[in-house]
Structures are given as structure tokens and as C-alpha cells.
């Protein structure tokens, strides 16, 4: 068994604009089951950070507990990281973000970590519109404890550990919930479809505010069987795609004229753009109500709706809401924070 990756990389692969090779964004060799969807998501995160020219030390990866939450070990070895208590990643992310708003925050969680034990934290971090990307690696089961159904297991889905019994409960739809709570960026994707996941991730990481991506990620060991709604084959057969997304860095102009009817260009706060070619009708990704309708309709039809469902490019993140200073709080010095005896005297005088 290999415990380390060979240090060689492809000699023809270029360095990105900040001088790093893709290998510099990788992590330790994965100890998840071979074929785990989570590894594909890790690989996509590596690719996205490489393409976004993020310097590894400008990123913080945070997670809770579970198979999904183990993955930060397997990507971005040179970044900051925090593996928190089960379901408590949002608190840590909030604290870290409050202290240093200059880092890029990437939270990784699972369906258990988010939809069960961490539900309370999840809803509040959405409500506060914390500037972070929140990925749920959603496999519908508790893989780390032998594959029991999780709260996102669909009604009627059959898993390996259920002894042939189907799930009797309704699933929590994290995407629907995020929409309901006014999340400013909501998307769903599939670990087996990197061409869709990559631009979504890049857009999410460039979004100012809370960006939520629910990624269906099959558990090859416990939930990739016939009858499971989170198996590779099932997802591929039932996937419904809203449109294809292109992430356009601000230095690249849009070269092609786009069709107003089917294409939409959304400019993000930092002048990066996302161009969306829509496949679905009656839907506009900046119109929350049309997105919600689309989601409901798709669920009714038994399809798995993927793509960027909703985005509010003008959203205000927590720092803007709280009107914090431009300098990250952790960099404020005593001279910035303590106004001096004279000022104090003036204030005290005001109360006399």
C-alpha cells in the first residue's frame, strides 16, 4: 500500500500566475475508500484553487466530523486548517472570518455533520451570510459508522446497511432549506461531473457572501447499490441540469456575443463574471422565486436538479452588515483600538 505520493509531477504542466504547480495544492494521499466521491471533490477543489491563482496560505479549510470532514487532509496541504467538533464548523468559520476577513474560507461538511448534528449551526451561518464557501459532500449515509441512513437519504432509497429496507423518512433537502433561509449563492452538483463542479466551485469561492454547494457524492462502500438514489448510476440517470456555467476571471473579456434568451452573464463583486448557458426555461438564477419553483418542479418529477440555482451578486456579507473596519480585526493594534486618555476623558465628560 502506498502511504505517500511520489514526488514527481508531469514535467509539462505549467505554474499558475502566482507561481505554484498544481501539485502544490494537493494534500496527503487519501485514506477514504477507493472510489469515494469525496476524493473527486477534493481533486476539484485542488483544480479550482490552482486555476483561481489562490496562494495556499491565503486559504483556510475548515471541517467538522465525518468522512467528508477528513478530506481537508487530502487537499491544500499548505493552507490553514481546522478540524472542529462535530457540526460546529460554522462557529469556527465565523470566528476565524471575524478575526481575519482577508482569508478565503472553505468549509467542508457532510450530510450528517450538516443536516443532523450541525443543523443549528448551518442555518445560522446562512442567516448571517458569512463570506465563505460551504460544501456538503452528500452521500446520504453515515459512511464512517458503517453506512446508516442519514437525514438526506431520500424516501424509498435502499442502502447496503439497511438490510434491503428502504428509507421510511422524508429527506431534508439542504438546497431547498438554503434557499428558504435566503442564502446568497445556492448550487447543487455531482462528484462524478467535474466539468460542472469546477466552475461552480470557482464561482462560489469568488462570491461575496455565503456560497452553498450541495455535492452528491456516492459512498462506494455503503450506498452505491441498486435502489440507492445516491449511487453513481442513479444520479447519472436522473440528473437534470439547469445549464452550463463558465467562470470568467476579470482579466479575460467575454469574447463571444451571447444570446439574451438562453445566456446570462452575472458580474460578481470583484468584477469576475459567470456566464451561464441555460438549458432550463422559466428560470432566472437571480430570481429566487423562479429558482424555488424550478426546484419544486424538479423534485416532483423525481429528478436531481443540478447547477447554479440562485445567486445574489449584490449580497452583503457579515462584515458589510456589521460595518466592520477595513483592516482585519486580528491586525488592529493597541493604538487602533485604544483611543487614548484624552478621548476617554471627553467621553466621560459626556456622561456627566
Amino acid at each position, binding site marked *: 500500500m*502506498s502511504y505517500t505520493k511520489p514526488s514527481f509531477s508531469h514535467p509539462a504542466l505549467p505554474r499558475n500566475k502566482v507561481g505554484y504547480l498544481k501539485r502544490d495544492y494537493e494534500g496527503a494521499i487519501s485514506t477514504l475508500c477507493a472510489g469515494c466521491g469525496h*476524493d*473527486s471533490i477534493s481533486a476539484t477543489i485542488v483544480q479550482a484553487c490552482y486555476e483561481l491563482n489562490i496562494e495556499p496560505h491565503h486559504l483556510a479549510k475548515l471541517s467538522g466530523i465525518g468522512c467528508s470532514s477528513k478530506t481537508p487532509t487530502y487537499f491544500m496541504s499548505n493552507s490553514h486548517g481546522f478540524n472542529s467538533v462535530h457540526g460546529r464548523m460554522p462557529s469556527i468559520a465565523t470566528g476565524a472570518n471575524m478575526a481575519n476577513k482577508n482569508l478565503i474560507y472553505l468549509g467542508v461538511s457532510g450530510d450528517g455533520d450538516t443536516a443532523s448534528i450541525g443543523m443549528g449551526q448551518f442555518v445560522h451561518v446562512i442567516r448571517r451570510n458569512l463570506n465563505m464557501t460551504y460544501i456538503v459532500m452528500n452521500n446520504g449515509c453515515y459512511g464512517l459508522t458503517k453506512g446508516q441512513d442519514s437525514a438526506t437519504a431520500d424516501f424509498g432509497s435502499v442502502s447496503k446497511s439497511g438490510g434491503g429496507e428502504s428509507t421510511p423518512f422524508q429527506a431534508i433537502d439542504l438546497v431547498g432549506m438554503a434557499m428558504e433561509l435566503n442564502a446568497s449563492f445556492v448550487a447543487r452538483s455531482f462528484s*462524478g461531473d467535474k466539468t460542472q463542479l469546477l466552475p461552480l466551485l470557482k464561482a462560489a469561492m469568488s462570491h461575496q457572501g455565503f456560497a452553498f454547494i450541495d455535492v452528491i457524492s*456516492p459512498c462506494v462502500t455503503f450506498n452505491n447499490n441498486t435502489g440507492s438514489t445516491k449511487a453513481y448510476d442513479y444520479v*447519472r440517470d436522473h440528473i437534470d441540469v439547469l445549464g452550463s456555467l463558465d467562470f470568467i476571471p476579470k482579466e479575460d473579456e467575454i469574447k463571444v456575443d451571447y444570446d439574451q434568451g438562453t445566456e446570462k452573464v452575472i458580474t460578481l463583486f470583484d468584477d469576475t463574471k459567470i456566464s451561464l448557458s441555460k*438549458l432550463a426555461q422559466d428560470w432566472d438564477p437571480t430570481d429566487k422565486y423562479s429558482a424555488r419553483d424550478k426546484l419544486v418542479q424538479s423534485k416532483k418529477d423525481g429528478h436531481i436538479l443540478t447547477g447554479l440555482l440562485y445567486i445574489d451578486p449584490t449580497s452583503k456579507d457579515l462584515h458589510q452588515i456589521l460595518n466592520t473596519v477595513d483592516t482585519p480585526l486580528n491586525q488592529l493594534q493597541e493604538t487602533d483600538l485604544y483611543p487614548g486618555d484624552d478621548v476617554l476623558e471627553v467621553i466621560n465628560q459626556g456622561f456627566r
Partner: protein
Amino acid sequence: MSIYGHNIWLIKNYMQYLFAFFKSTSMKPTNIKDPEYLHKVVDCQYACPAHTPVPEYIRLIAEKKYTEAYMINWDSNVFPGILGRTCDRPCEPACRRGRLEEEPVAICRLKRVAADHKGEVKHLMPQVPLVKNGKKIALIGGGPASLTVARDLAPLGYEIDLYDEWSGGGGMMRTQIPSFRLPIEVLEEEVNYILDMGITTHFNHFVDSMKDMLTKGYDAIFVGTGAPKGRNLNIPGRVEADAHVHIGIEWLAGVAFEHIKSVGKKVIVLGGGNTAMDCCRTSKRIGAEVVNVVVRSPFKNMKASPWEIEDALREDIIIQNNMPPKEFIMEDGKLKGVLFSKVRAEYDKNGKRSLVPTGEPDVLIEADEVIIAIGQDNSFPWIEKDIGLELGKWDLPVLNKTTYQSTLPQVFFGGDAAFGPENVITAVAQAHQAAISIDLYLSGKDLVKDRPSPYVNLVSQKMGIHEWMYDSQVVDDIRYQVPHEEKTKSLADRKVEVELGFDEIAGFKEAQRCLNCDAQTIFTANRCIECDACMDVCPTRCISFVPNGEEEDLRQRLSAPADNLTQDLYVSETLATQRVMVKDEDVCLHCGLCAERCPTAAWDMQMFFYNVTKAHTGCETVTV
């Protein structure tokens, strides 16, 4: 309304798929059952003219199984100890490691490790039957080609007579390779393994008539006389200076047989090939104080192997380039030196080189003796024109390129005598084929249709979950340097070997650098669930899942551009999502990570063994 399932997959992600779909020139799935495909993946073995199973013997060296490693070599290249010191090493520039870092595995030096540390081997060699098969074969020339034919055919019961003009076997390996590169004991050990197979030797016997040979009742004759004629240089003063001027290969033979024991204090060697390197280094050892190697062409175009040039420079040989010789200058009946003009290389738009005079004044280099080492040619003055053996261009025999049979059906050629000067390993490879032809010919079989196919085997290395039977870990070590004998000591005696060879520890470490390219990545498309795990884990981005297309187009759409066109793409059958798995073989580390991370064992690491069938192992088992 939206479009679902399969169709959407195509439209959404893979517009290129449609593009490819309408073009019928998508790549066909790779036929992994064709042993030549997998053979090509083992770069070193594929580049070796004799196709020695290199990674196999390197693994055996790492396991300290030197005897077994030696025998794998011996079967394939006949002279492991000799070649481990002197081979031209076409394998090393081909080594995959050289495409990942600066230096390839020191394959040649590892071969020597096997030879230096082996145990008893004679009992492992094929035994010669006491009862002969009644057929007699003559071998003309006692060099590597003839010896290989003898080795391959003697165990089959052929009676073999070997003729050579010199007093011992080995041909150019004895006469042209100096002892400081190849000690005489090493040469004799490996030559004698063959001569001891009951070969009747006729040494000191120059064959001067093919016509005579044909009347001696041999059932077949093999000509392995090499390229024995050193080229001369006809410039002004050559005749006058003759007493001070030597032809390189003749001079080396003179030194080897101790007819020549000294040389003048100032020596010029003309030429930039390996013979020139041997001449200059030999001169240094038998009396020369100043040795100038003067080459017409630029340094980078010199034909000598880089390591031989390096060794010469280490011994304070002066190499001067861009100087064609013009005239031998005599003074008072003695050689004064050689006059050279100065040129520079210019290349036309087709890359063809011409040497243009620079206009600088000519240069006189003083010399007591001059050695001309500017190439060698074949020479068949002893083959009569009226016997039906046709000689063609450059007086080379007209041969079938597969069978090495001449226009006289019972006469075969091999080695430098066949297609002109090459090297020992090429001679051995050709002689194996000639031996097969002779055996087929004398068994009344068809020389082309009945040729034996290579012996191949493909065995899964899976030992458990994520465990392989080979050492899949890739080490970062850079190439280990071979220790050299102290310069003063080696220059004092031409028989002292310069290179000392790896000891067991260095040999082990160097062996660990081998990537095991024969541990093949075998893909079974119908097991693949397209989870991308292999693609994600591959350290060198060899694996991609993409819509199929034309090769040229496909090469640009992979995880990393596949720009090395000499390396194949391994293309799978079409998968469930209408994509194909494409693996660029170029910089695969054979680390097995793809197979370790594969949940369904669609990838497997399988050890590939490929061995060219020799006359003594295979002709009887031919199946067509």
C-alpha cells in the same frame, strides 16, 4: 421542459462529444492483447536491440538475486559482464526516468552488478547433447555475432566450427576494446562459456575464400566478420608519414596482442568516435604525454558516447573541434605534426550541416605519432563474385532483413558484417535471428512463416487490498555515480580497469530508481464506474476520461498535454457516459496508485514479461 438522463449528459458536458461523434476517426480501443503494445511501454527493453527484459533483472538485483539477474541477461544478450562495461546503452536515453528527472537509471552499470556479484552459473546454461544432430555449421569470424550463433545452436546438437584470424575468440571485443575498459578475464570468461560448448575453433586462421568454405561440406555458413577495415585518410604527406601513422582499430589490436608496447610522447588522434576515445586513452597509458584528439565537427556532434568523452577528459586528453586535417608535415624525414584548417558548422534550412572555413590561419599541432580513427568499413575481398552470393550497395551482402539469409541460401550474415558497423548489442540481436534462421533452414521449415513468436506473460500483481507483489514505491534518489580507480594508478597500467562498478549497496539503491515499467496498468472498461479516483490520484496526470476523438485532438484534451508523440495513448472501450479512458503512457510512474484507488479493480497492475525467443529455447514449440 428539460432533457433528461443520457442525452443531457451529452449536451451539457460534452459538446465535443458531438463533434467527435460525427467524425468517424475517433481512436480505436487499444488492443492490449498485442504484446508489442505493452512491449513499447517498457521503454528500455523496447530500445534494446536484443530486447533484454531490463526491469525484470533490475528487480532481481535489488533482491540480491545476482545469478538469476545474470542469467536473464545471458539468455538475451550473451555477454552481460562485457556489455555491463562496454555497451552503447541505447536503453538509457529511452529510460522513462530520463523524462521525469535529469538522469535515467544506470541500466548498463546495473548489468555489471549482476555479472560482478553472481554465483555459479555454468550449470544453469543449456547443456550440449552428446549425440549430435548430424548437421555442421561454419562460423566465420569469432566476434559477438558468431559466438551468439554458436551459443544458440550448439545446445541443439549442431556441430560447429569457428574460424578467426586472431589467436583468441571475442573479435572486436578483444582487439578493439582496451583492457582498462574491459579486463581480459571478463572477456575470456564469457567467451569461454560458449567455446566450452564443444565448439571446434580454428584460431589464427584467416578465411580467404568463400568458395573454399562452400566445398568443405558445411550445411550452413554464418559470416560474422564485423567491419574490420579501418578508414584511411588520404591527405598530403600521408605516404611520407606512413611510419608514424596508424589506423585506429589496427593499432588497438596491436596493443591488445602486445605487438605495440609504446607510443611517442606527442600523439594526435583523428576522429571523434568511441574508437578515437579508446585510442587516446590507450596512448596515455603506453607513453604519450600530450594527446590531442582533433575532430572535424563541433563537440556536440561527436559520435563518441558522452560517458567515454567524459572519461577521456578526466584523463587530461585535449579535445579540439572544428578542425579538419589538411596535411601531414614532415621535417628531416621525421613527422613534425599535422596541419589543420579551421571551420565552423553551418546548417541549412533542412538542418543539413556543412563545415565552412572560418578564414583563420591553419594550425599546426605537433606530434610524434598520429592515429586515424575516423570510421571503419566492411570488407569482403574473400567472397568471390562468381559463387552466387550477391554484394550490393557499399559492398554489403544482399540479405533478407528478417532472416539474415544471403542470396546463397545456406549462407547467413550477422553483426557489423550484415548491415554495416553498429555495436555489440546489435550484433547479438541480429545473430539470435540468424541462428533461428539457420535452425529453421536446416529443419526444412519456412524461414519467415515458421519464425517463433516472442515468449510473453502477463500476471496480476495483486496480493491483497492495495498490496502489490512488486515494490511500487517511487524513490527520489538521483543517479548514483560509479566509483573510478585512482587516476595515477589507472594511467600507469593499461590493464587496470578504470570503472570499479557499483558495490552491493549502491547497486541496490540504483536498482530502486527503476520505475518497473513492466508492471503494466491494465484497464477493464466494463468494470469502471467512472468515479475518477484514478485520474485524481495520478501524480503525473496520465489518466483522463474524455469524449473520444482523433488522436491529434485527443492529445490536447487530456489532464496534461500528451505532446510526446513517440509514446502511445492507451484508449479504452467507450464507457457508460460515452467517454473513454485515455492514458498517456509517457510519464506513467507505474506506482500503482490508480489501481490502489480503484474501487472495482478496473485497473490492475500486471507484470509483463517479454522475451525474444532464441533458437535454443523456442523453435520446437512454434505454433502458427
